Protein backbone atom coordinates (compact mmCIF):
# COMPACT_ATOMS: atom_id res chain seq x y z
CA UNK A 1 0.00 0.00 0.00
CA UNK A 2 1.36 3.37 -0.90
CA UNK A 3 1.70 6.32 1.41
CA UNK A 4 -0.55 8.46 -0.76
CA UNK A 5 -4.20 9.30 -0.38
CA UNK A 6 -6.83 6.65 -0.11
CA UNK A 7 -8.06 7.14 -3.64
CA UNK A 8 -8.00 4.39 -6.18
CA UNK A 9 -7.61 5.59 -9.73
CA UNK A 10 -9.02 3.18 -12.26
CA UNK A 11 -8.67 3.74 -15.98
CA UNK A 12 -10.96 1.03 -17.12
CA UNK A 13 -10.24 0.66 -20.81
CA UNK A 14 -11.62 -1.87 -23.23
CA UNK A 15 -8.24 -3.51 -23.63
CA UNK A 16 -6.22 -2.76 -20.54
CA UNK A 17 -7.34 -1.96 -17.04
CA UNK A 18 -4.97 0.46 -15.33
CA UNK A 19 -5.32 0.70 -11.57
CA UNK A 20 -3.33 2.32 -8.80
CA UNK A 21 -3.40 4.87 -6.02
CA UNK A 22 -3.91 8.57 -6.51
CA UNK A 23 -0.73 10.58 -6.16
CA UNK A 24 1.54 7.83 -7.44
CA UNK A 25 3.47 8.21 -10.65
CA UNK A 26 2.70 4.79 -12.05
CA UNK A 27 -0.25 2.49 -11.59
CA UNK A 28 0.17 -0.67 -9.57
CA UNK A 29 -1.52 -2.87 -12.12
CA UNK A 30 -1.77 -2.68 -15.89
CA UNK A 31 -3.62 -5.82 -16.83
CA UNK A 32 -5.78 -7.01 -19.71
CA UNK A 33 -9.39 -6.27 -18.97
CA UNK A 34 -10.69 -9.70 -19.82
CA UNK A 35 -11.12 -13.28 -18.75
CA UNK A 36 -9.33 -16.01 -20.63
CA UNK A 37 -9.46 -19.76 -20.78
CA UNK A 38 -7.06 -22.11 -22.53
CA UNK A 39 -8.72 -24.10 -25.27
CA UNK A 40 -7.33 -27.54 -24.62
CA UNK A 41 -7.52 -29.84 -21.64
CA UNK A 42 -7.38 -28.17 -18.26
CA UNK A 43 -9.28 -25.30 -19.72
CA UNK A 44 -12.00 -25.36 -17.12
CA UNK A 45 -10.94 -22.41 -15.09
CA UNK A 46 -11.23 -18.85 -16.35
CA UNK A 47 -8.11 -16.87 -15.73
CA UNK A 48 -8.63 -13.27 -14.76
CA UNK A 49 -6.63 -10.21 -15.76
CA UNK A 50 -3.05 -10.50 -14.52
CA UNK A 51 -3.12 -14.28 -14.46
CA UNK A 52 -3.12 -14.12 -18.25
CA UNK A 53 0.21 -12.31 -18.24
CA UNK A 54 2.08 -14.92 -16.21
CA UNK A 55 5.05 -16.27 -18.17
CA UNK A 56 4.06 -19.91 -17.89
CA UNK A 57 0.57 -19.39 -19.29
CA UNK A 58 0.05 -20.89 -22.70
CA UNK A 59 -1.53 -18.13 -24.74
CA UNK A 60 -2.32 -20.20 -27.80
CA UNK A 61 -6.02 -20.42 -28.65
CA UNK A 62 -7.02 -18.61 -25.54
CA UNK A 63 -10.76 -18.07 -25.39
CA UNK A 64 -11.36 -14.51 -24.28
CA UNK A 65 -14.35 -12.80 -22.77
CA UNK A 66 -14.31 -9.07 -22.39
CA UNK A 67 -16.70 -6.95 -20.34
CA UNK A 68 -16.53 -4.29 -23.04
CA UNK A 69 -18.23 -4.11 -26.40
CA UNK A 70 -17.33 -1.28 -28.76
CA UNK A 71 -15.65 0.59 -25.96
CA UNK A 72 -18.56 0.54 -23.53
CA UNK A 73 -19.12 -1.59 -20.49
CA UNK A 74 -21.85 -4.09 -21.24
CA UNK A 75 -21.16 -6.99 -18.95
CA UNK A 76 -20.91 -5.97 -15.32
CA UNK A 77 -20.56 -9.56 -14.17
CA UNK A 78 -17.30 -9.97 -16.00
CA UNK A 79 -16.19 -6.54 -14.90
CA UNK A 80 -16.85 -7.46 -11.31
CA UNK A 81 -14.56 -10.46 -11.64
CA UNK A 82 -11.77 -8.35 -13.09
CA UNK A 83 -12.13 -5.54 -10.58
CA UNK A 84 -12.32 -7.98 -7.74
CA UNK A 85 -9.06 -9.50 -8.83
CA UNK A 86 -7.40 -6.13 -9.40
CA UNK A 87 -8.61 -4.35 -6.28
CA UNK A 88 -8.38 -7.14 -3.76
CA UNK A 89 -5.68 -9.26 -5.28
CA UNK A 90 -3.26 -6.70 -6.66
CA UNK A 91 -3.96 -3.44 -4.86
CA UNK A 92 -4.94 -5.03 -1.52
CA UNK A 93 -7.43 -2.24 -1.03
CA UNK A 94 -10.52 -2.07 1.08
CA UNK A 95 -13.23 -0.35 -0.98
CA UNK A 96 -15.28 0.57 2.07
CA UNK A 97 -12.64 3.06 3.16
CA UNK A 98 -11.46 4.38 -0.17
CA UNK A 99 -12.71 6.62 -2.92
CA UNK A 100 -12.72 5.66 -6.55
CA UNK A 101 -11.84 7.75 -9.55
CA UNK A 102 -13.13 5.96 -12.57
CA UNK A 103 -12.42 6.91 -16.17
CA UNK A 104 -15.40 6.46 -18.41
CA UNK A 105 -15.56 6.71 -22.18
CA UNK A 106 -17.12 9.80 -23.70
CA UNK A 107 -20.84 9.72 -24.42
CA UNK A 108 -21.51 6.91 -22.04
CA UNK A 109 -25.10 5.76 -22.23
CA UNK A 110 -27.34 6.39 -19.18
CA UNK A 111 -28.23 2.75 -18.69
CA UNK A 112 -24.54 1.86 -18.65
CA UNK A 113 -23.84 4.64 -16.18
CA UNK A 114 -26.53 3.28 -13.93
CA UNK A 115 -25.07 -0.21 -14.10
CA UNK A 116 -21.63 1.19 -13.32
CA UNK A 117 -22.90 3.08 -10.29
CA UNK A 118 -24.54 -0.07 -9.07
CA UNK A 119 -21.32 -1.96 -9.47
CA UNK A 120 -19.31 0.69 -7.66
CA UNK A 121 -21.60 1.34 -4.73
CA UNK A 122 -23.62 -1.81 -4.26
CA UNK A 123 -21.22 -4.56 -5.23
CA UNK A 124 -17.97 -3.04 -4.04
CA UNK A 125 -19.32 -0.50 -1.56
CA UNK A 126 -16.89 2.31 -2.27
CA UNK A 127 -16.98 5.22 0.09
CA UNK A 128 -17.18 7.83 -2.64
CA UNK A 129 -16.92 7.94 -6.37
CA UNK A 130 -15.87 10.31 -9.09
CA UNK A 131 -16.22 9.90 -12.83
CA UNK A 132 -13.80 11.54 -15.20
CA UNK A 133 -13.33 11.38 -18.94
CA UNK A 134 -10.02 10.69 -20.56
CA UNK A 135 -9.42 13.89 -22.61
CA UNK A 136 -9.66 16.22 -19.63
CA UNK A 137 -7.30 14.03 -17.60
CA UNK A 138 -4.75 13.91 -20.37
CA UNK A 139 -4.93 17.67 -20.68
CA UNK A 140 -4.52 18.04 -16.95
CA UNK A 141 -1.44 15.89 -16.92
CA UNK A 142 0.21 17.52 -19.91
CA UNK A 143 -0.61 21.00 -18.67
CA UNK A 144 1.18 20.21 -15.44
CA UNK A 145 4.31 19.34 -17.37
CA UNK A 146 4.26 21.89 -20.13
CA UNK A 147 3.82 25.56 -19.19
CA UNK A 148 2.79 26.59 -22.69
CA UNK A 149 -0.23 24.31 -22.48
CA UNK A 150 -1.05 25.58 -19.03
CA UNK A 151 -1.28 29.14 -20.28
CA UNK A 152 -3.25 28.18 -23.38
CA UNK A 153 -5.70 26.30 -21.15
CA UNK A 154 -6.98 24.26 -24.03
CA UNK A 155 -5.85 21.39 -26.14
CA UNK A 156 -7.11 18.82 -28.56
CA UNK A 157 -6.70 15.31 -27.25
CA UNK A 158 -6.52 12.47 -29.73
CA UNK A 159 -7.16 9.29 -27.82
CA UNK A 160 -6.50 6.32 -30.05
CA UNK A 161 -7.40 3.42 -27.85
CA UNK A 162 -8.52 -0.14 -28.04
CA UNK A 163 -12.06 0.19 -29.33
CA UNK A 164 -12.21 3.58 -30.98
CA UNK A 165 -10.46 6.84 -31.51
CA UNK A 166 -11.71 10.14 -30.15
CA UNK A 167 -10.56 13.59 -31.05
CA UNK A 168 -11.86 15.83 -28.29
CA UNK A 169 -11.21 19.50 -27.56
CA UNK A 170 -10.60 20.36 -23.92
CA UNK A 171 -11.06 23.87 -22.55
CA UNK A 172 -10.08 24.73 -18.99
CA UNK A 173 -10.11 21.11 -17.96
CA UNK A 174 -13.55 20.45 -19.37
CA UNK A 175 -14.09 18.33 -22.42
CA UNK A 176 -16.18 20.13 -25.00
CA UNK A 177 -18.34 17.21 -25.86
CA UNK A 178 -20.10 18.98 -28.70
CA UNK A 179 -16.74 19.09 -30.44
CA UNK A 180 -15.65 15.52 -29.85
CA UNK A 181 -15.52 13.28 -32.91
CA UNK A 182 -15.25 9.54 -32.96
CA UNK A 183 -13.58 7.25 -35.44
CA UNK A 184 -14.70 3.65 -35.01
CA UNK A 185 -11.26 2.19 -35.37
CA UNK A 186 -8.89 1.25 -32.63
CA UNK A 187 -6.32 -1.31 -31.67
CA UNK A 188 -8.82 -4.12 -31.57
CA UNK A 189 -9.98 -3.64 -35.14
CA UNK A 190 -6.38 -3.45 -36.32
CA UNK A 191 -5.53 -6.68 -34.52
CA UNK A 192 -8.54 -8.38 -36.03
CA UNK A 193 -7.58 -7.09 -39.46
CA UNK A 194 -4.03 -8.36 -39.10
CA UNK A 195 -5.42 -11.66 -37.90
CA UNK A 196 -7.52 -11.91 -41.03
CA UNK A 197 -4.59 -11.09 -43.31
CA UNK A 198 -2.14 -13.47 -41.70
CA UNK A 199 -4.69 -16.26 -41.53
CA UNK A 200 -5.36 -15.97 -45.24
CA UNK A 201 -1.78 -15.56 -46.35
CA UNK A 202 0.17 -17.94 -44.12
CA UNK A 203 -0.94 -19.57 -40.88
CA UNK A 204 -4.42 -19.72 -39.45
CA UNK A 205 -4.30 -17.51 -36.38
CA UNK A 206 -7.95 -16.57 -36.12
CA UNK A 207 -8.05 -17.75 -32.50
CA UNK A 208 -4.78 -16.21 -31.39
CA UNK A 209 -5.85 -12.75 -30.34
CA UNK A 210 -3.11 -12.36 -27.75
CA UNK A 211 -0.32 -13.45 -30.03
CA UNK A 212 -1.35 -11.32 -32.96
CA UNK A 213 -1.76 -8.40 -30.62
CA UNK A 214 1.84 -8.90 -29.66
CA UNK A 215 2.95 -9.21 -33.28
CA UNK A 216 1.11 -6.02 -34.12
CA UNK A 217 2.75 -4.10 -31.31
CA UNK A 218 6.20 -5.34 -32.19
CA UNK A 219 6.14 -5.12 -35.96
CA UNK A 220 3.59 -2.69 -37.30
CA UNK A 221 4.45 0.88 -38.13
CA UNK A 222 2.91 3.83 -39.91
CA UNK A 223 4.22 4.52 -43.36
CA UNK A 224 5.08 8.05 -44.40
CA UNK A 225 4.82 7.29 -48.08
CA UNK A 226 2.60 4.35 -48.86
CA UNK A 227 3.28 4.10 -52.58
CA UNK A 228 7.03 4.09 -52.12
CA UNK A 229 6.87 1.60 -49.31
CA UNK A 230 4.66 -0.67 -51.34
CA UNK A 231 7.31 -0.62 -54.07
CA UNK A 232 10.00 -1.47 -51.58
CA UNK A 233 7.89 -4.24 -50.12
CA UNK A 234 7.69 -5.89 -53.51
CA UNK A 235 11.36 -6.75 -53.57
CA UNK A 236 12.34 -10.28 -52.89
CA UNK A 237 14.69 -11.73 -50.36
CA UNK A 238 17.14 -9.54 -48.54
CA UNK A 239 16.45 -6.42 -50.58
CA UNK A 240 13.07 -6.20 -49.00
CA UNK A 241 13.51 -3.92 -46.02
CA UNK A 242 10.18 -4.75 -44.43
CA UNK A 243 10.28 -8.50 -44.54
CA UNK A 244 10.42 -10.06 -41.12
CA UNK A 245 9.41 -13.23 -39.40
CA UNK A 246 7.33 -13.74 -36.32
CA UNK A 247 7.67 -17.05 -34.53
CA UNK A 248 4.58 -18.45 -32.90
CA UNK A 249 4.91 -20.13 -29.53
CA UNK A 250 5.12 -23.90 -29.65
CA UNK A 251 4.36 -24.46 -25.99
CA UNK A 252 7.62 -26.34 -25.35
CA UNK A 253 10.62 -24.13 -25.93
CA UNK A 254 8.75 -20.87 -25.89
CA UNK A 255 5.34 -19.94 -24.57
CA UNK A 256 5.32 -16.44 -25.99
CA UNK A 257 5.74 -15.47 -29.59
CA UNK A 258 8.76 -13.41 -30.66
CA UNK A 259 10.27 -11.62 -33.62
CA UNK A 260 13.13 -13.26 -35.44
CA UNK A 261 15.97 -10.83 -36.13
CA UNK A 262 14.65 -7.81 -34.36
CA UNK A 263 17.37 -5.48 -35.62
CA UNK A 264 16.83 -6.64 -39.16
CA UNK A 265 13.13 -5.88 -38.88
CA UNK A 266 13.73 -2.25 -37.95
CA UNK A 267 16.85 -1.44 -39.91
CA UNK A 268 14.89 0.50 -42.53
CA UNK A 269 13.99 3.09 -39.91
CA UNK A 270 17.62 4.05 -39.40
CA UNK A 271 18.80 3.79 -43.00
CA UNK A 272 16.17 6.00 -44.47
CA UNK A 273 14.88 6.11 -48.06
CA UNK A 274 17.64 7.67 -50.20
CA UNK A 275 20.33 5.36 -49.01
CA UNK A 276 18.44 2.13 -49.00
CA UNK A 277 17.49 2.29 -52.66
CA UNK A 278 20.90 2.34 -54.43
CA UNK A 279 22.58 0.33 -51.72
CA UNK A 280 20.42 -2.64 -52.31
CA UNK A 281 20.99 -2.47 -56.04
CA UNK A 282 24.80 -2.42 -55.89
CA UNK A 283 25.03 -5.09 -53.32
CA UNK A 284 23.09 -7.44 -55.50
CA UNK A 285 26.00 -8.17 -57.83
CA UNK A 286 28.85 -8.46 -55.37
CA UNK A 287 27.41 -10.34 -52.50
CA UNK A 288 25.07 -12.55 -54.37
CA UNK A 289 26.36 -15.76 -52.91
CA UNK A 290 26.09 -14.49 -49.43
CA UNK A 291 22.60 -13.34 -50.12
CA UNK A 292 21.37 -16.69 -51.24
CA UNK A 293 22.79 -18.28 -48.15
CA UNK A 294 21.11 -15.72 -45.95
CA UNK A 295 17.94 -16.13 -47.90
CA UNK A 296 17.91 -19.76 -46.93
CA UNK A 297 17.88 -18.75 -43.30
CA UNK A 298 15.12 -16.33 -43.86
CA UNK A 299 12.90 -18.76 -45.63
CA UNK A 300 10.04 -20.13 -43.62
CA UNK A 301 11.16 -22.91 -41.38
CA UNK A 302 8.48 -25.54 -41.65
CA UNK A 303 9.33 -27.30 -38.44
CA UNK A 304 8.46 -24.17 -36.55
CA UNK A 305 5.26 -22.28 -36.72
CA UNK A 306 6.07 -18.86 -38.03
CA UNK A 307 4.85 -16.38 -40.54
CA UNK A 308 6.37 -13.64 -42.65
CA UNK A 309 5.10 -10.12 -42.77
CA UNK A 310 5.90 -7.54 -45.41
CA UNK A 311 3.35 -5.00 -46.53
CA UNK A 312 0.99 -5.94 -43.71
CA UNK A 313 3.33 -4.15 -41.39
CA UNK A 314 2.29 -0.74 -42.59
CA UNK A 315 -1.01 -1.45 -44.34
CA UNK A 316 -2.65 -2.40 -41.07
CA UNK A 317 -2.09 0.87 -39.15
CA UNK A 318 -2.74 2.67 -42.43
CA UNK A 319 -6.43 2.01 -41.84
CA UNK A 320 -6.58 4.61 -39.07
CA UNK A 321 -5.61 7.24 -41.58
CA UNK A 322 -7.73 5.91 -44.42
CA UNK A 323 -10.68 3.89 -43.11
CA UNK A 324 -12.22 4.15 -46.57
CA UNK A 325 -9.70 1.61 -47.83
CA UNK A 326 -11.33 -0.94 -45.60
CA UNK A 327 -14.74 -0.10 -46.97
CA UNK A 328 -15.77 2.00 -43.99
CA UNK A 329 -17.60 5.15 -44.80
CA UNK A 330 -15.60 7.22 -42.36
CA UNK A 331 -13.06 9.96 -42.61
CA UNK A 332 -9.48 9.36 -41.57
CA UNK A 333 -7.80 10.53 -38.40
CA UNK A 334 -6.53 13.82 -39.82
CA UNK A 335 -9.96 14.82 -40.97
CA UNK A 336 -11.40 13.67 -37.67
CA UNK A 337 -9.10 16.09 -35.90
CA UNK A 338 -10.00 18.93 -38.24
CA UNK A 339 -13.71 18.34 -37.76
CA UNK A 340 -13.33 18.27 -34.01
CA UNK A 341 -11.55 21.62 -34.09
CA UNK A 342 -14.00 23.20 -36.49
CA UNK A 343 -16.88 22.30 -34.21
CA UNK A 344 -15.47 24.76 -31.68
CA UNK A 345 -15.50 28.53 -31.61
CA UNK A 346 -13.25 30.04 -34.34
CA UNK A 347 -11.16 31.82 -31.73
CA UNK A 348 -10.06 28.46 -30.44
CA UNK A 349 -8.94 27.04 -33.78
CA UNK A 350 -5.35 28.32 -33.87
CA UNK A 351 -4.75 27.38 -30.25
CA UNK A 352 -6.18 23.93 -30.63
CA UNK A 353 -4.09 23.13 -33.70
CA UNK A 354 -1.06 24.22 -31.75
CA UNK A 355 -1.68 21.78 -28.93
CA UNK A 356 -2.69 18.39 -30.20
CA UNK A 357 -1.93 15.69 -27.68
CA UNK A 358 -1.66 12.07 -28.72
CA UNK A 359 -2.59 9.42 -26.21
CA UNK A 360 -3.75 5.81 -26.19
CA UNK A 361 -1.95 2.61 -27.02
CA UNK A 362 -2.49 2.72 -30.76
CA UNK A 363 -0.44 5.89 -31.09
CA UNK A 364 2.62 3.84 -30.19
CA UNK A 365 3.15 2.77 -33.78
CA UNK A 366 6.44 4.26 -34.99
CA UNK A 367 6.01 7.40 -37.10
CA UNK A 368 2.41 7.87 -36.04
CA UNK A 369 2.86 11.50 -35.08
CA UNK A 370 4.90 12.33 -38.20
CA UNK A 371 2.24 10.89 -40.42
CA UNK A 372 -0.52 12.81 -38.65
CA UNK A 373 1.48 16.00 -39.00
CA UNK A 374 2.04 15.30 -42.67
CA UNK A 375 -1.67 14.71 -43.30
CA UNK A 376 -2.90 17.59 -41.16
CA UNK A 377 -0.71 20.29 -42.64
CA UNK A 378 -2.53 20.61 -45.97
CA UNK A 379 -5.89 20.60 -44.21
CA UNK A 380 -5.37 23.66 -42.05
CA UNK A 381 -4.68 27.30 -42.72
CA UNK A 382 -1.18 28.43 -43.59
CA UNK A 383 -0.88 30.92 -40.78
CA UNK A 384 -1.82 28.42 -38.09
CA UNK A 385 0.99 26.65 -36.38
CA UNK A 386 0.70 22.93 -36.00
CA UNK A 387 2.18 21.11 -33.09
CA UNK A 388 1.65 17.53 -32.06
CA UNK A 389 2.64 16.53 -28.56
CA UNK A 390 3.37 12.89 -27.92
CA UNK A 391 3.22 11.51 -24.44
CA UNK A 392 6.12 9.58 -23.05
CA UNK A 393 3.85 6.73 -22.12
CA UNK A 394 0.59 7.02 -24.06
CA UNK A 395 -0.98 3.99 -22.41
CA UNK A 396 -0.62 5.46 -18.93
CA UNK A 397 -1.28 9.09 -19.88
CA UNK A 398 -4.89 9.04 -18.80
CA UNK A 399 -4.12 7.25 -15.58
CA UNK A 400 -1.44 9.73 -14.60
CA UNK A 401 -3.87 12.58 -15.14
CA UNK A 402 -6.30 10.77 -12.89
CA UNK A 403 -3.62 10.33 -10.27
CA UNK A 404 -2.92 14.03 -10.41
CA UNK A 405 -6.58 14.90 -10.03
CA UNK A 406 -7.02 12.47 -7.15
CA UNK A 407 -4.17 14.06 -5.24
CA UNK A 408 -5.60 17.56 -5.55
CA UNK A 409 -6.93 18.91 -2.24
CA UNK A 410 -10.53 19.42 -3.30
CA UNK A 411 -10.98 16.02 -4.87
CA UNK A 412 -13.11 14.66 -2.06
CA UNK A 413 -15.57 17.51 -2.48
CA UNK A 414 -16.17 16.63 -6.09
CA UNK A 415 -17.03 13.04 -5.31
CA UNK A 416 -20.42 11.52 -4.84
CA UNK A 417 -20.55 9.68 -1.56
CA UNK A 418 -22.30 6.42 -0.91
CA UNK A 419 -24.82 8.19 1.30
CA UNK A 420 -25.73 10.60 -1.46
CA UNK A 421 -26.12 7.73 -3.88
CA UNK A 422 -28.38 5.87 -1.50
CA UNK A 423 -30.50 8.92 -0.95
CA UNK A 424 -30.76 10.44 -4.41
CA UNK A 425 -30.02 7.55 -6.72
CA UNK A 426 -27.84 7.32 -9.74
CA UNK A 427 -29.23 9.93 -12.11
CA UNK A 428 -29.17 12.71 -9.60
CA UNK A 429 -25.61 12.06 -8.56
CA UNK A 430 -24.42 11.87 -12.11
CA UNK A 431 -25.45 15.44 -12.73
CA UNK A 432 -22.55 16.51 -10.64
CA UNK A 433 -20.09 15.25 -13.23
CA UNK A 434 -21.60 17.41 -15.98
CA UNK A 435 -22.22 14.49 -18.28
Amino acid sequence: MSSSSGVIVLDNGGGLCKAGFGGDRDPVAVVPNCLGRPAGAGGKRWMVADQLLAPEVDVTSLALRRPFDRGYLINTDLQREVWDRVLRGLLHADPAHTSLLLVEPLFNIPSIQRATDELVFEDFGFQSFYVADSPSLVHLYEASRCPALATAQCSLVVDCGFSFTHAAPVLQNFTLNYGARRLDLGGKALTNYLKELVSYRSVNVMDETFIIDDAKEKLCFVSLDVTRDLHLARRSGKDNPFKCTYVLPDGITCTKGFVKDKDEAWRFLSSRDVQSLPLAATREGTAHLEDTEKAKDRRIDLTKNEFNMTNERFLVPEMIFRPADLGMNEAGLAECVVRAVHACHPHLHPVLFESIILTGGSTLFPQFAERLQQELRPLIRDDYRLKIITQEDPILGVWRGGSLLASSPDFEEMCVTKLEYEEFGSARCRRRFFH
Partner: protein
Amino acid sequence: MEDDVPGGPLRRMSSRIRRVAPKMVAALASSDNREQAALARLEALESDNAFAEVMEVSSEEDDSLDGDGQAHMQRRQSKNMKRKTRQGKAMENAKRAPRTFIEILHDANLEALPRHVPTYLRAAVGPPSASARRYFCAVCGFAACYTCVRCGARFCSCRCQVIHNETRCLKFIS
Protein backbone atom coordinates in the same frame (compact mmCIF):
# COMPACT_ATOMS: atom_id res chain seq x y z
CA MET B 1 -41.99 1.96 -78.22
CA GLU B 2 -42.53 -1.67 -77.43
CA ASP B 3 -38.95 -1.93 -76.18
CA ASP B 4 -39.68 0.63 -73.55
CA VAL B 5 -42.20 -1.53 -71.84
CA PRO B 6 -40.32 -3.37 -69.12
CA GLY B 7 -40.88 -7.04 -69.02
CA GLY B 8 -42.71 -6.83 -72.33
CA PRO B 9 -43.96 -9.84 -74.25
CA LEU B 10 -41.46 -12.60 -73.89
CA ARG B 11 -42.16 -13.84 -77.36
CA ARG B 12 -40.31 -10.95 -78.87
CA MET B 13 -37.08 -11.66 -76.98
CA SER B 14 -34.41 -13.93 -78.24
CA SER B 15 -34.00 -17.12 -76.32
CA ARG B 16 -30.64 -16.01 -75.08
CA ILE B 17 -32.03 -12.88 -73.51
CA ARG B 18 -34.72 -14.92 -71.91
CA ARG B 19 -32.12 -17.19 -70.41
CA VAL B 20 -29.80 -14.44 -69.31
CA ALA B 21 -32.34 -11.99 -67.94
CA PRO B 22 -33.00 -13.74 -64.64
CA LYS B 23 -29.27 -14.07 -64.14
CA MET B 24 -28.88 -10.38 -64.71
CA VAL B 25 -31.49 -9.72 -62.08
CA ALA B 26 -29.64 -11.96 -59.69
CA ALA B 27 -26.39 -10.21 -60.48
CA LEU B 28 -27.94 -6.84 -59.78
CA ALA B 29 -29.24 -8.12 -56.50
CA SER B 30 -25.84 -9.46 -55.68
CA SER B 31 -24.40 -5.99 -55.46
CA ASP B 32 -26.57 -5.75 -52.40
CA ASN B 33 -25.10 -9.05 -51.23
CA ARG B 34 -21.65 -7.62 -51.65
CA GLU B 35 -22.57 -4.68 -49.51
CA GLN B 36 -23.91 -7.02 -46.88
CA ALA B 37 -20.75 -9.06 -47.01
CA ALA B 38 -18.63 -5.94 -46.62
CA LEU B 39 -20.70 -4.88 -43.64
CA ALA B 40 -20.42 -8.32 -42.08
CA ARG B 41 -16.67 -8.14 -42.50
CA LEU B 42 -16.48 -4.77 -40.76
CA GLU B 43 -18.65 -6.17 -38.01
CA ALA B 44 -16.21 -9.02 -37.59
CA LEU B 45 -13.36 -6.55 -37.22
CA GLU B 46 -15.20 -4.90 -34.36
CA SER B 47 -15.98 -8.09 -32.52
CA ASP B 48 -14.59 -7.98 -29.02
CA ASN B 49 -14.99 -11.56 -28.10
CA ALA B 50 -13.10 -13.70 -30.50
CA PHE B 51 -15.32 -16.63 -29.76
CA ALA B 52 -19.05 -16.78 -30.10
CA GLU B 53 -20.29 -16.70 -26.60
CA VAL B 54 -21.74 -20.00 -25.64
CA MET B 55 -23.70 -19.69 -22.47
CA GLU B 56 -23.09 -22.87 -20.63
CA VAL B 57 -26.27 -24.12 -19.12
CA SER B 58 -25.12 -26.13 -16.21
CA SER B 59 -26.20 -29.65 -16.93
CA GLU B 60 -25.46 -30.79 -13.43
CA GLU B 61 -28.99 -30.34 -12.23
CA ASP B 62 -30.39 -32.51 -14.97
CA ASP B 63 -27.77 -35.12 -14.33
CA SER B 64 -28.51 -35.31 -10.68
CA LEU B 65 -32.20 -35.78 -11.39
CA ASP B 66 -31.55 -38.66 -13.74
CA GLY B 67 -28.68 -40.12 -11.81
CA ASP B 68 -30.58 -40.43 -8.58
CA GLY B 69 -32.58 -43.27 -9.96
CA GLN B 70 -35.65 -42.11 -8.15
CA ALA B 71 -39.06 -43.67 -8.50
CA HIS B 72 -41.60 -42.80 -11.13
CA MET B 73 -43.65 -40.90 -8.65
CA GLN B 74 -41.01 -38.41 -7.91
CA ARG B 75 -40.29 -37.88 -11.53
CA ARG B 76 -43.91 -37.26 -12.30
CA GLN B 77 -44.05 -34.89 -9.44
CA SER B 78 -41.01 -33.13 -10.61
CA LYS B 79 -42.45 -32.70 -14.09
CA ASN B 80 -44.38 -29.70 -13.03
CA MET B 81 -41.41 -28.41 -11.18
CA LYS B 82 -39.16 -29.04 -14.09
CA ARG B 83 -41.17 -26.88 -16.41
CA LYS B 84 -40.96 -24.09 -13.96
CA THR B 85 -37.28 -24.47 -13.49
CA ARG B 86 -36.69 -24.58 -17.19
CA GLN B 87 -38.58 -21.39 -17.60
CA GLY B 88 -36.73 -19.94 -14.70
CA LYS B 89 -33.48 -21.04 -16.21
CA ALA B 90 -34.34 -19.38 -19.47
CA MET B 91 -35.17 -16.22 -17.61
CA GLU B 92 -31.94 -16.45 -15.76
CA ASN B 93 -30.04 -17.02 -18.95
CA ALA B 94 -31.72 -14.10 -20.60
CA LYS B 95 -30.69 -12.04 -17.66
CA ARG B 96 -27.22 -13.42 -17.71
CA ALA B 97 -26.57 -13.21 -21.42
CA PRO B 98 -25.21 -9.72 -21.78
CA ARG B 99 -26.88 -7.42 -24.22
CA THR B 100 -24.66 -6.15 -26.94
CA PHE B 101 -23.78 -2.52 -27.16
CA ILE B 102 -25.92 -2.07 -30.25
CA GLU B 103 -28.97 -3.25 -28.32
CA ILE B 104 -28.22 -0.92 -25.44
CA LEU B 105 -27.73 1.92 -27.87
CA HIS B 106 -31.04 1.13 -29.48
CA ASP B 107 -32.80 1.11 -26.13
CA ALA B 108 -31.27 4.41 -25.13
CA ASN B 109 -33.26 5.99 -27.96
CA LEU B 110 -30.73 8.72 -28.61
CA GLU B 111 -32.42 9.75 -31.85
CA ALA B 112 -35.22 11.23 -29.82
CA LEU B 113 -32.97 13.90 -28.33
CA PRO B 114 -32.92 17.30 -30.00
CA ARG B 115 -30.27 17.96 -32.60
CA HIS B 116 -28.02 20.14 -30.54
CA VAL B 117 -27.45 17.60 -27.80
CA PRO B 118 -24.14 15.86 -28.36
CA THR B 119 -24.60 12.10 -28.17
CA TYR B 120 -22.83 8.97 -29.19
CA LEU B 121 -24.53 9.05 -32.57
CA ARG B 122 -23.67 12.65 -33.36
CA ALA B 123 -20.06 12.21 -32.37
CA ALA B 124 -19.37 9.86 -35.28
CA VAL B 125 -16.91 11.45 -37.62
CA GLY B 126 -18.92 10.89 -40.77
CA PRO B 127 -17.95 10.16 -44.35
CA PRO B 128 -14.66 11.34 -45.80
CA SER B 129 -14.70 14.52 -47.84
CA ALA B 130 -11.82 14.14 -50.22
CA SER B 131 -9.87 10.93 -50.29
CA ALA B 132 -11.04 8.25 -52.66
CA ARG B 133 -10.86 4.63 -51.71
CA ARG B 134 -7.67 2.86 -52.59
CA TYR B 135 -7.87 -0.81 -53.39
CA PHE B 136 -5.44 -3.43 -52.27
CA CYS B 137 -5.10 -6.95 -53.56
CA ALA B 138 -7.06 -9.36 -51.41
CA VAL B 139 -4.32 -11.95 -51.87
CA CYS B 140 -0.98 -10.19 -51.58
CA GLY B 141 -1.86 -6.71 -50.36
CA PHE B 142 -0.34 -4.63 -53.14
CA ALA B 143 -2.23 -2.07 -55.15
CA ALA B 144 -4.92 -3.87 -57.11
CA CYS B 145 -6.36 -2.80 -60.41
CA TYR B 146 -8.63 -5.73 -61.26
CA THR B 147 -11.94 -6.78 -59.79
CA CYS B 148 -13.24 -10.27 -59.48
CA VAL B 149 -16.35 -10.49 -61.61
CA ARG B 150 -18.02 -12.97 -59.32
CA CYS B 151 -17.52 -11.51 -55.87
CA GLY B 152 -16.10 -8.04 -56.32
CA ALA B 153 -12.86 -8.65 -54.48
CA ARG B 154 -9.73 -6.98 -55.78
CA PHE B 155 -6.55 -8.56 -57.08
CA CYS B 156 -3.41 -7.33 -58.72
CA SER B 157 -2.23 -10.02 -61.10
CA CYS B 158 -3.11 -13.21 -62.84
CA ARG B 159 -1.31 -15.19 -60.21
CA CYS B 160 -3.32 -13.64 -57.44
CA GLN B 161 -6.49 -14.14 -59.40
CA VAL B 162 -5.87 -17.86 -59.60
CA ILE B 163 -5.22 -18.03 -55.88
CA HIS B 164 -8.27 -15.94 -55.18
CA ASN B 165 -10.51 -18.11 -57.29
CA GLU B 166 -9.24 -21.24 -55.64
CA THR B 167 -9.51 -20.10 -52.07
CA ARG B 168 -11.63 -17.19 -51.25
CA CYS B 169 -13.90 -16.27 -54.10
CA LEU B 170 -17.48 -15.90 -52.90
CA LYS B 171 -16.39 -16.77 -49.40
CA PHE B 172 -17.94 -13.69 -47.97
CA ILE B 173 -21.04 -13.86 -50.07
CA SER B 174 -22.53 -17.31 -50.20
